[in-house]
């Protein structure tokens, strides 16, 4: 069964929303023993709760690059991988998601950044918005790209915007890939836009 990014991130933040809403509905002045209580890890929802995904998106054709030097790159993310277990910890009004690993495929107009993706992510979810961060690896037969990501999520994970600074390995050694992903809750696609260039990521970011 193919599972969309929308569905998986929806799963990720649906729990957070439930937890956050339950927290919001609860009395705001916690008892002393509640305030002192340690955070409790909650098992991740089982895969049975995942909503059947929409059809696999078909990327719109776009001009390909020559795969050399600095290039502006575009593409889409297609979720056809896995979502490994994560924990949810409630701390005050925030639901902390930790240890999630998501895998999917990027279909890009530059072969250097086309490939399979592994995203190790964390989320702090509030009532309607969440911050998100983690590390990403994009790999194909010629090399890989590895680095940190950060961004925002909303609509119980159905919308998100994150960006990653990835450093090239293998055939891409000496290059950097800036990757920005955007998913509007009303859209089917996760769109990617970014750039590949020779050199290091900026130190101030």
């Amino acid at each position, binding site marked *: 069964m193919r599972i969309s990014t929308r569905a998986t991130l929806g799963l990720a933040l649906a729990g957070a929303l439930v937890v956050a809403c339950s927290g919001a509905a609860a009395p705001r002045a916690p008892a002393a023993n509640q305030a002192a209580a340690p955070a409790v890890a909650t098992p991740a929802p089982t895969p049975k709760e995942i909503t059947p995904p929409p059809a696999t998106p078909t990327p719109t054709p776009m001009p390909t690059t020559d795969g050399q030097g600095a290039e502006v790159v575009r593409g889409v993310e297609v979720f056809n991988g896995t979502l490994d277990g994560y924990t949810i910890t409630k701390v005050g009004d925030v639901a902390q998601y930790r240890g999630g690993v998501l895998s999917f495929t990027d279909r890009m107009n530059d072969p250097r950044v086309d490939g399979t993706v592994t995203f190790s992510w964390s989320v702090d979810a509030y009532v309607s918005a*969440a911050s998100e961060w983690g590390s990403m690896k994009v790999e194909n037969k010629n090399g890989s790209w590895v680095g940190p990501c950060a961004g925002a999520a909303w609509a119980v994970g159905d919308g998100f915007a994150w960006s990653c600074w990835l450093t090239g390995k293998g055939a891409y050694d000496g290059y950097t890939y800036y990757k920005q992903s955007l998913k509007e809750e009303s859209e089917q696609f996760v769109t990617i836009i970014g750039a590949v260039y020779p050199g290091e990521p900026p130190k101030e970011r």
Partner: protein
Amino acid sequence: MPELDPFDARLEAAVHGFADRAQTSVDAAATAERAMRHRHRGRLAWLGVAVPVPVSILVVLTLLVLALVASLGIGAPRRGQDAALPIVAVSPGAASPPAARPDLASDGKGDEVVGGGATLTLTTPYTYSRAGATTQLRDGVITVTTRMSDPRVSGTGTWRVNADLHPTTGPGWGTYRLENAAGAWDGTCSGAAWDAERGGAWSCRLTGSGAYDGYSYLFSATTSDPGIDDVRGVIVPGPLPSPE
């Protein structure tokens, strides 16, 4: 003196004889004029005006001065807008930013999803220099006007921008301050800029102050038209998360 008469007679005869053989068609006035014309319009003249040194020397000196000025300019950082090297798509006469998204109505409190638009105007040209094949752009200032779905992040921004272009695509980074009457957001932005579409993609991580103290603002911006960005992000309580 009668003894000189024979000599005078011979001399007279010789003079007349010489004069009879001489060229008498020469026009002295015309010859003088030609001589003067040559002097005024020859190699010592410039556009018909007489100068004290040969024109060729003046031309060589002028070329040397131009070469010196050019050599001083090349390699030194320059400040100014290079049309071939836009760091971001900026609008010289920026219009009002696009309307905030009505589907993202906000009460302006707590954590919130935000969306809207921004216009960018380059108010301080950057300096640029070459380092091999890379064009280094430094210390540009872009004034950003944002119109967002949440009033806390609508206002005027100041983005101090740097970029390394290879040759027209590459990373950009810098500090960003967004402020309005109630408070401000400060932090950094980074992303990529490119020339072909006169556009870029950026992400920013800002910390609130004033009325926004204790909140963080994270957003991504993508150029939709030159000088106009679409903005999506969130306001969340607490400090900025640290990427792993």
